[in-house]
């Protein structure tokens, strides 16, 4: 088949990139199979060609880091010989085209990334973003994606314990589905995607290869126009049952001494797994596609190499161990076939029987892939965007109404409808269920527990990508801290528009710098991550969405704290300071339809002190509840703490004379989203002890009210029966999808 300009374009490659391929092949033109392999390896999705130079700026080192970015997942040390592997990944493009399968296979892919490292997955989280509620596709995408995540995670028996769901018109044409897996493993038993040892056999395991998902990675590296549905065949179909068998079989094989390296076949399937493994080891690899188990007759080498059929793994084994390993997979009714071997040639050679159908240097496909320093430009509209004339915003006439309308916003409303569809208790380790700031999962056989949270406020990132991204890190870490855990590390999933537009690259660069600053200051290295670009349709990009997943450690799982008020008579304390900030708030959006102003400021010194004070107080055993103040501000935070699922309990609060600066507007006080604030409850008699801890950490401290009664009373401005608050907050999403 002759390679024409059209063929090159269909493969998502530029003319210059093509010439680079010819160079890499020593002046020879690639055949169609080779062109296919290059096109996926050099796609944005696999090569990170637009983002790579920026990603290098992210701090990935720390005392607890065992494995940073570059492997299938990052790994941190949690002491006593144990380690935790985690990563977050996007499945945005497929989920918009086919939400159920797109989301399901997103979960499947990230699970494989984690158990490939040798870890048993113990928790799933996700971050979902859909278009405006009034958009015709929103409810359909929400229902489909949630059912897909449930269908996969529930069948696997891994609890889906936390996450976030948000709605905004910027996602009308591109929903976001980011999935995170956390797994536990022994610190000295970590497996890597490494094809070392010349002559070692390469074994294919799992589902057969079909024609599904060919060029999925390329699709994920392109913008949508009209008619995205036509791309449905590039979406893979998930089979969680086979993945469950694969998980159990792999963990059994990992207990043996036979495995040299392993990698899952995710995006770009057999191609990227084999080539990346050879690249990491500095070796070559020889594969005969005739030996690859196939679902149908007549598949070409091109199709076999580029298929993204799910639930497949590639192992490199020690010579002579093939039979023993095959026996374990057989027990789990899985196919395991030797399809090639590791070589010392530095080349990936694909054969079909006797015939060589592709022969390419490994380093040209990987290290020598194009890297772009794309032009960057701050949008001209940014100044106007950041301008907010506070005098033009009149104060609410009825604060009760305002609070209820905020609680009814789908971004704040209870996500019970979502997480009730996820099995969040299987494995009997979930100490804190979905709904509180962070989910907490214990580790059986130890006193330890892991706290985890996924966060991003993309409106902040739109107004100021640097601060918005830093706040995402701060909030994820804060959520983990208020559960009593020490945040150890983060993973990121960077969702942006078309990188070929300088304004998008500006957002991207700013966000990276913001994550960097917060990560360094808060001591949470970025140990893994994923970039999803080209999230735009017909020229409209999503709001920049750098989602952050944080994992923290609780040494004594009895010290876990939730956000819920417990007992009448307890004192409510505010840590932190109220500033007059309304820019980027949900309040402005809900009441005025505005995404405008400056997002809240973030002082990382204050943030660090706040989180340390919180943890210290929780560890001292005096704290009954701890809740971070975020979207919706102080009033919403108090309402959500009051709505304890084990029985709601009211509160009476007066913050007017607290840390408030003189002259602060009442709407900013109640609904502004100033950072680095937490509300705690405790017994009156423990107040002094808390005050000492707050002072020692230099954190502003003030008792602002008491738990009790069946009403929510704030500052003489808000006075609503709890039943009304609960009804509004709980019913919105249910009613929306009904």
């Amino acid at each position, binding site marked *: 088949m002759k390679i024409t300009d059209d063929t090159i374009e269909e493969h998502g490659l530029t003319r210059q990139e093509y010439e680079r391929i010819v160079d890499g092949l020593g002046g020879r033109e690639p055949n169609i199979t080779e062109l296919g392999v290059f096109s996926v390896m050099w796609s944005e999705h696999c090569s990170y060609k637009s983002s790579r130079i920026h990603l290098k700026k992210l701090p990935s080192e720390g005392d607890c880091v065992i494995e940073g970015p570059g492997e299938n997942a990052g790994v941190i040390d949690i002491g006593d010989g144990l380690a935790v592997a985690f990563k977050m990944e996007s499945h945005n493009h497929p989920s918009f085209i086919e939400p159920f399968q797109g989301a399901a296979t997103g979960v499947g892919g990230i699970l494989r990334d984690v158990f490939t490292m040798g870890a048993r997955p113990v928790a799933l989280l996700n971050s979902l973003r859909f278009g405006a509620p009034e958009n015709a596709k929103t409810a359909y995408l929400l229902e489909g994606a949630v059912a897909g995540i449930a269908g996969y995670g529930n069948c696997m*028996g891994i609890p889906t314990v936390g996450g976030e769901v948000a709605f905004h018109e910027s996602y009308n044409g591109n929903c976001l589905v980011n999935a995170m897996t956390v797994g536990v493993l022994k610190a000295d038993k970590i497996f890597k995607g490494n094809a070392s040892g010349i002559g070692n056999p390469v074994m294919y395991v799992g589902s057969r290869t079909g024609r599904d998902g060919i060029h999925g990675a390329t699709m994920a590296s392109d913008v949508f126009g009209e008619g995205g549905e036509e791309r449905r065949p590039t979406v893979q179909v998930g089979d969680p049952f086979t993945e*469950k068998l694969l998980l159990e079989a792999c963990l059994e094989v990992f207990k043996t001494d036979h495995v040299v390296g392993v990698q899952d076949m995710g995006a770009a399937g057999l191609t990227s797994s084999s080539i990346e493994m050879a690249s990491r080891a500095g070796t070559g690899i020889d594969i005969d596609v005739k030996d690859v188990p196939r679902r149908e007759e007549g598949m070409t080498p091109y199709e076999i190499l580029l298929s993204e059929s799910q639930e497949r793994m590639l192992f490199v084994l020690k010579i002579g161990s093939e039979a023993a390993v095959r026996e374990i997979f057989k027990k789990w009714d899985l196919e395991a076939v030797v399809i090639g071997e590791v070589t010392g040639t530095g080349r990936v050679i694909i054969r079909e029987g006797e015939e060589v159908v592709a022969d390419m240097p490994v380093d040209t496909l990987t290290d020598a892939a194009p890297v772009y320093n794309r032009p960057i430009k701050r949008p001209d509209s940014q100044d106007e965007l950041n301008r907010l004339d506070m005098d033009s915003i009149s104060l609410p006439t009825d604060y009760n109404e305002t609070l209820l309308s905020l609680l009814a916003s789908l971004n704040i409303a209870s996500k019970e409808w979502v997480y*009730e569809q*996820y*099995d969040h208790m299987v494995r009997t380790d979930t100490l804190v269920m979905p709904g509180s700031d962070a989910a907490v999962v214990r580790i059986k056989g130890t006193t330890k527990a892991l706290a985890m949270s996924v966060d991003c406020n993309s409106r902040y990132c739109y107004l100021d990508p640097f601060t918005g991204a830093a706040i995402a890190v701060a909030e994820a870490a804060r959520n983990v801290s208020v559960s009593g855990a020490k945040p150890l590390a983060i993973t990121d999933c960077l969702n942006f528009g078309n990188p070929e537009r300088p304004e998008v690259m500006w957002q991207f660069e700013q966000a990276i710098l913001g994550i960097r600053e917060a990560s360094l200051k808060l001591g949470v290295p970025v140990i893994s991550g994923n970039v999803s670009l080209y999230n735009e349709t017909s020229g409209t990009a999503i709001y920049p969405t750098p989602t952050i997943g944080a994992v923290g450690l609780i040494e004594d799982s009895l010290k876990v704290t939730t956000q819920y008020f417990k007992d009448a008579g307890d004192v409510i304390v505010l840590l932190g300071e109220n500033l007059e900030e309304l820019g980027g708030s949900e309040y402005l959006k809900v009441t005025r339809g505005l995404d405008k102003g400056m997002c809240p400021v973030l002082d990382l010194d204050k943030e660090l002190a706040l989180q340390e004070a919180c943890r210290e107080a929780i560890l001292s055993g005096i704290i009954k509840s701890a809740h971070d103040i975020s979207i919706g501000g102080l009033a919403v935070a108090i309402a959500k703490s009051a709505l304890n699922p084990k029985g709601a309990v009211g509160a009476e609060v007066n913050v007017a004379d607290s840390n408030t600066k003189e002259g602060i507007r009442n709407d900013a006080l109640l609904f502004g989203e100033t950072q680095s604030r937490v509300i705690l409850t405790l017994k009156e008699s423990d107040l002094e002890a808390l005050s000492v801890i707050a002072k020692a950490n230099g954190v502003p401290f003030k008792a602002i009210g008491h738990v009790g009664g069946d009403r929510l009373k704030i500052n003489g401005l808000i006075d609503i029966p709890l039943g009304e608050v609960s009804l509004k907050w709980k019913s919105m999403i249910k009613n929306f999808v009904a």
Partner: protein
Amino acid sequence: MKFGIVVFPGSNCDHDCYHAAKHVMGQEAEYIWHKTTSLKGFDCIVFPGGFSYGDYLRTGAIAKFSPVLKEIKKFADNGGLVLGICNGFQILCETGLLPGVLMRNSGLKFICKDVGLRVENVNTPFTKLYEEGQLLDIPIAHADGNYFADAETLKSLSGNGQIILRYATKDGDVDASANPNGSVGNIAGITNKEKNVFGLMPHPERAMEASLGGTDGYAFFESIVKVVS
């Protein structure tokens, strides 16, 4: 005593049941691979929850052909205790060890949450330590828990005291508001006529430690231990 926990391809509450039997109850426990043909030494066989064979066909429809089932039928016929939780209950119905079927939830969605239950019969080896009419809070987690049986079967279930658990409100009322999945008569758990085979949709193994939110499921396992010992 010794619990045996049957593992099918796709079982996923096997570890939880093992933990409950071994670490919470402090009893002996062992996994039983579904191809096993000997049940020697076991006092109670547990069919754990999960998605045996992916439940792609009908829940439990393929699991019932596993070799271990033949042995378990003999084990039950000889009076051995068999407990089926969630997918385990579905499998027991498929094999005919328990009457009736479990259909797709009336709301058509998977549901994971705490539900209220009322204990209907304490004269069984599984509920001995509860009180008649006792109200429990135990989680469910299933997509196919909508119990159905024809009128005649229901009549005999009821007449023989085989209905063990019903979904109930906080006040103990058995009404539609307490029914999470559309089960006929709010039925959440039943036994066979001889009361040595018990199937239930709720997950007692998830409600045995206070740190996980409640201990209302503990006495099911405690009853078994007491009866056997």
